[in-house]
């Protein structure tokens, strides 16, 4: 097999972004794409919608069926890469094949964490929830064993999305969170409380400040869990949604530098020439702090892939840094969070407005005269304007008092900033 100029390991947001990035510069150069999962590129975040029955399998694909063909991509799906040999410039697959590469992109995403200190995880009915197949397995288990009660370990985004899916299926669910509040990474106490209220209104049990120590089984199948404080919860299924870590197993032992993820520069290059990394597996700079840390968010992954692909093909895109951001609908409560959301240290200023009755909360976090973070609960339209102000590091001193008003919009911004948007083709600074 002839050596393709571009080889991508992975098939999700970063990989698809990379294909787009390559094709921006090189419309023809063949691309080889190798992915462990046998599916056409699909939208990972949709798995909770699939489980909950909000979408069916036909809506899972992330790109049209002719995506690979149209982009001259040779897709090797269902093939697991076991090793990268940087010296020989080739990768080895599980079935022993060796594939030479010219420029390589590692976009293998993250793996779910299963805490080692929980006993009983070998029982049937214990799942992690990150892939399409996970959703299928869970669906099958629910049907076969007529599951009525579940415990979800982890009150973060993945945990709550799985909770929502289970609620859709009418399954009584309890979510167990180690931190003192759910969504502790993305939300402050107020927002977290509103989210919790929404869950509890939907009949979900929420337990914070504790975790599962032991999973009980009966006849080899899950029958309940025991929390750290000794409380027992009966259930027939457990889902681990504690988090994902970058899947760096593939580069273990190789010369490619890693920290928590594969370290990359602003062109998505790793420490080894010709090898790039993008997406949840990579560790790139945070836009606000400048520090490198993994920010496993869908739009960041796509953008990193775009930059990587573009650069692999000889373009000159740069990654401007990742921004932590999430949009999640929690049992009907719309929420968006961006950047630094908890303003504990000095030097940060938080502006907030809260209406408990309608569960509408708005928070803007400022550092000096620039916005560095925001939370929107209940009313989320136009949140992107704030995201834009964060990204472009716009000074808000002239209109700080308008930020929380109900009709905050482009009209609140100085006309110099918005004129390109209203009368032109986009925001320019």
């Amino acid at each position, binding site marked *: 097999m002839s050596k393709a100029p571009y080889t991508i390991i992975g098939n999700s947001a970063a990989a698809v972004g990379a294909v787009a990035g390559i094709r921006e510069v090189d419309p023809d150069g063949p691309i080889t794409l190798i992915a462990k999962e046998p599916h056409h590129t699909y939208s990972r*975040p949709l798995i909770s919608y699939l489980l909950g029955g909000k979408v069916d399998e036909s*809506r899972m694909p992330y790109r049209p069926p002719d995506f690979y063909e149209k982009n001259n991509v040779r897709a090797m799906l269902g093939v697991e890469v076991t090793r990268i040999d940087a010296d020989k410039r080739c990768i080895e697959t599980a079935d022993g094949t060796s594939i030479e590469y010219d420029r390589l992109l590692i976009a293998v995403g993250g793996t779910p964490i299963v805490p080692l200190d929980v006993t009983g995880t070998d029982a049937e009915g214990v799942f992690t929830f990150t892939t399409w197949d996970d959703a299928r397995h869970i669906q099958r288990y629910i049907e076969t064993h007529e599951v009525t009660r579940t415990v979800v370990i982890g009150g973060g985004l993945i945990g709550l999305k799985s909770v929502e899916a289970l609620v859709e299926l009418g399954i009584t669910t309890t979510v167990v969170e180690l931190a003192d509040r759910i969504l502790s990474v993305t939300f402050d106490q107020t927002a977290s409380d509103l989210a919790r209220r929404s869950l509890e209104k939907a009949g979900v049990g929420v337990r914070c400040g504790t975790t599962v120590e032991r999973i009980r089984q009966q006849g080899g199948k899950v029958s309940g869990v025991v929390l750290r404080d000794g409380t027992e919860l009966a259930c027939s299924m457990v889902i681990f949604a504690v988090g994902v870590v970058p899947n760096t197993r593939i580069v273990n032992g190789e010369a490619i530098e890693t920290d928590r993820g594969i370290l990359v520069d602003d062109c998505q290059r790793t420490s080894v020439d010709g090898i790039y990394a993008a997406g949840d597996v990579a560790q790139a700079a945070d836009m606000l702090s400048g520090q490198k840390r993994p920010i496993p968010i869908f*739009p960041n992954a796509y*953008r990193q892939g775009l930059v990587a692909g573009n650069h692999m093909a000889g373009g000159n895109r740069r990654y401007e840094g990742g921004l932590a951001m999430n949009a999640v609908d929690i049992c009907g409560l719309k929420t*968006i969070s961006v950047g630094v959301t908890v303003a504990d240290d000095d030097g940060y200023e938080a502006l907030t407005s809260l209406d408990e009755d309608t569960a509408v909360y708005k928070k803007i976090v400022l550092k000096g005269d620039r916005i560095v973070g925001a939370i929107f609960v209940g009313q989320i*339209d136009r949140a992107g304007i704030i995201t834009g102000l964060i990204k472009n590091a716009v000074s808000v001193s002239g209109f700080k008092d308008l930020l929380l008003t109900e009709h905050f919009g482009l*009209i609140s911004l100085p006309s110099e900033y918005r004129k390109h948007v*209203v009368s032109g*083709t986009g925001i320019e600074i």
Partner: protein
Amino acid sequence: MKRIIAREEYCLGCRLCEIHCLVQHSKSKKLIKVFRSEERRAIVPGVQVEQSGQVSFAIQCRHCDEAPCIEACMTGAMHRDPDTGAVICNQDKCVGCWMCIMVCPVGAIRSGDERHVASKCDLCMGEEVPVCVANCPNEAIICEDDDE
């Protein structure tokens, strides 16, 4: 490609653009019928007028060359129409995750459609002139063609 531009010095804040956008994207496309039915609250117009005192302008999707919403969309519902170059939301594919709303620097995408999907300007696909442009009484909204 066509670009819609609003000139705030001529905008009256009359909101006829919003009305016509709503009707254009309704089922019956009949003005009185739409407004007397529940459809009026079920659909969200792609163009909305921002107003503060005497300053006002209509704002809709910019159909950006580098569209952050397309990058953020996790289902692939946001895509670029190859013929017109417009950024279109395939509302059948959209699940209402609101990532697009989170990243749109213009705030041009809205939730609120009763189907729980994202709503935004689609350049009135299939029409010669977008209806907001055609119906602005003071020609505050105009359509320019990049290619010309």
